């Protein structure tokens, strides 16, 4: 099976119009599931289709393909550049981006979307590293935090191609300026196949002495991640099969970004054609290992939007 076709059809589940049958037939759609398999914290490699058991709405499916470390990545970097990131954290962020760009290989592409109250797409998906580097260098920090709107924008930018979509989200605060609500963003995330990895920095902005901070950042609400914000980020990661890494603002982001990317590369892409399940609506996905121990982390399901 051509993976290009699989990528183009995955999660859009395009079928012939006016189909009378309420159930999927073979050869009409391919669903692709991005899964992380770990033994404790260490990713497990070398698995094949025979090692997985996948159920779609409770019905065991035949896995047609399993890919590991072979497909190019489409990385959507969605970075918080609100005023509380100004100074040292912004330098850390740029350093992390620079390291991430250096590790892009083959057909990997990245896009850069920053947000404060305003969202700004610095570059769409591109494999041009120089362009990405200069885009990352130009980023400045100011304003409040439209976290929900930015996540939605990142999800909406997902392109229908063979690349594995990863959103790398960095934020140090709770939302203060979005139009969209958290639930709308979670729903949108469930409708896509983008895996969201989140680096959430607990800002020490309120603890900094005033003379080290600019006037504009003093006007901001202290951007400590509060319980609701943490809950939202965990819910988002869980819905997409991703992960949240909580860190403090002093920890170098370079290592965290590289570890995150490394983990993402070592995920499996499992493809199957839904069989004997009703078309339309929400499809719960359950992926397990067969014949060996380990934990599988994958999205909880997908929406058949026909």
């Amino acid at each position: 099976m051509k993976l290009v076709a699989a990528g183009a059809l995955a999660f859009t589940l395009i079928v012939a119009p006016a189909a009378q049958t309420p159930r999927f037939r073979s050869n009409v759609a391919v669903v692709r599931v991005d899964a992380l398999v770990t033994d404790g914290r260490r990713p497990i490699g070398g698995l094949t289709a025979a090692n997985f058991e996948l159920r779609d709405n409770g019905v065991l499916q035949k896995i047609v393909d399993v890919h590991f470390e072979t497909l190019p990545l489409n990385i959507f970097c969605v970075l918080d550049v609100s005023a509380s990131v100004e100074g040292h954290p912004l330098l850390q962020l740029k350093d992390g981006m620079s390291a991430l760009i250096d590790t892009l290989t083959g057909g990997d592409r990245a896009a850069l979307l920053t947000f404060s109250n305003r969202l700004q797409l610095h570059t769409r998906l591109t494999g041009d590293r120089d362009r990405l580097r200069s885009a990352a260098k130009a980023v400045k920090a100011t304003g409040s935090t439209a976290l929900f709107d930015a996540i939605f924008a990142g999800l909406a930018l997902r392109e229908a191609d063979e690349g594995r979509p990863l959103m790398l989200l960095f934020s140090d605060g709770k939302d203060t300026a979005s139009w969209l609500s958290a639930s709308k963003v979670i729903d949108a995330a469930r409708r896509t196949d983008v895996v969201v990895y989140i680096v959430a920095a607990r800002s020490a902005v309120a603890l900094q002495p005033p003379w080290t901070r600019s006037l504009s950042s003093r006007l901001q609400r202290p951007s400590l991640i509060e319980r609701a914000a943490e809950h939202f980020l965990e819910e988002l990661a869980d819905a997409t099969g991703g992960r949240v890494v909580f860190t403090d603002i002093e920890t170098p982001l370079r290592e965290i970004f590289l570890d995150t990317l490394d983990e993402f590369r070592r995920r499996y892409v499992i493809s199957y054609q839904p069989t004997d399940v009703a078309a339309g609506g929400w499809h719960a996905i359950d992926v397990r290992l067969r014949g060996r121990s380990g934990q599988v982390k994958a999205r909880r399901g997908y929406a058949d939007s026909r």
Partner: protein
Amino acid sequence: MREPSLAARQIWRTVTIALAVSVVLPPFAAAQPEPTLPELADRLDGLVRLYRTESIERAVDGLAEFVVLKRSRAAAQRWFSVPEHPSADRRVQLEAGLMLYSESLGRIWWNELHPYGPASPYIPTLIDLEERLRDLDRDSPFLRNWYLYWEAFGHAVVSRPLPSALDFLDEALRAFPDDSDVLMAAGSRFELRWWFADENGHRDPRPSGAANDGLLVRARDYLRRGVAADPTHIEARLRFVRVLLELNDLDAASQAVATPHWSSPDPTMAYLASLFEGELRQRQGNYEAAVRSYESAIAKSAQAQSARVARAHLEHAMGSRADAAAIVIEGVSSASTENDPWWVYVRGQLWHFDGHLRRLRLMVRR
């Protein structure tokens, strides 16, 4: 040797100055005669006149030196009681005094991370001045504007709320119970508090009858009164509709927009009206009307992003991913610095702060 850190140098500098002051200043200070109460009152009178007629900055600086004096409050109270000015001039002088104290305290609150200490010497006299002016004429145009100005300032510092002693909203509502601006400011306060409330971290509309929606209910009630007091007041109506959406009361929101007053020549208000109506129609399941409203908002503001995000989200939810992506790309590709009306709206009455301040200065500066 390693250079000492900035913090270490700051501490060293502070200790050095403190030592120098403790050694040198006491004999010098002891040589100075302490100003009498009338002298201090005259000094305050001079500062207020400076504020009224010459330099606001110099008056603010001078007040900073004055308020830390031991008997500054007593001197201010003596100054209130000086009977020699003609009554009209006296009132303007008191109004200017309130403005001088307000601006000085406001600057500290605005600029300092922990304002309680440095701002505290200003607080008693500011309260005294407001009370004195209320005694003279509780519903004067100056006080009305000052209440609105002070409320707008409170919205600017919502993350570091002012102490309750500096909360004059109840006085404003008592003096101006049917004033649509005052009622809107009150509703806006509770709307803003809800916006920043910890339990509202997800920004989802409240399910019907949910607990912890007391802030929204208070906001709704004040805004309803504001709209009733002046049905043409577009911002009061906008906020009323927005709060009804937050409360998930779509029927009431529908009624509130079904009026010729749901429009405005002001592009900011017109944008927000279209945006909110789009949200209302979307939640009612009328997607075509929602798209029309969002498009109408987009047409009114070339650089605003909120309506584009709303429109893209609607397309995405309906399965039109390519359309959603195109709308997002169009909306986020510009490096514009233009403000989106939505971002300003969510800061409550802050957008009126400059206007109120300008009007008040005009009233007292001659």
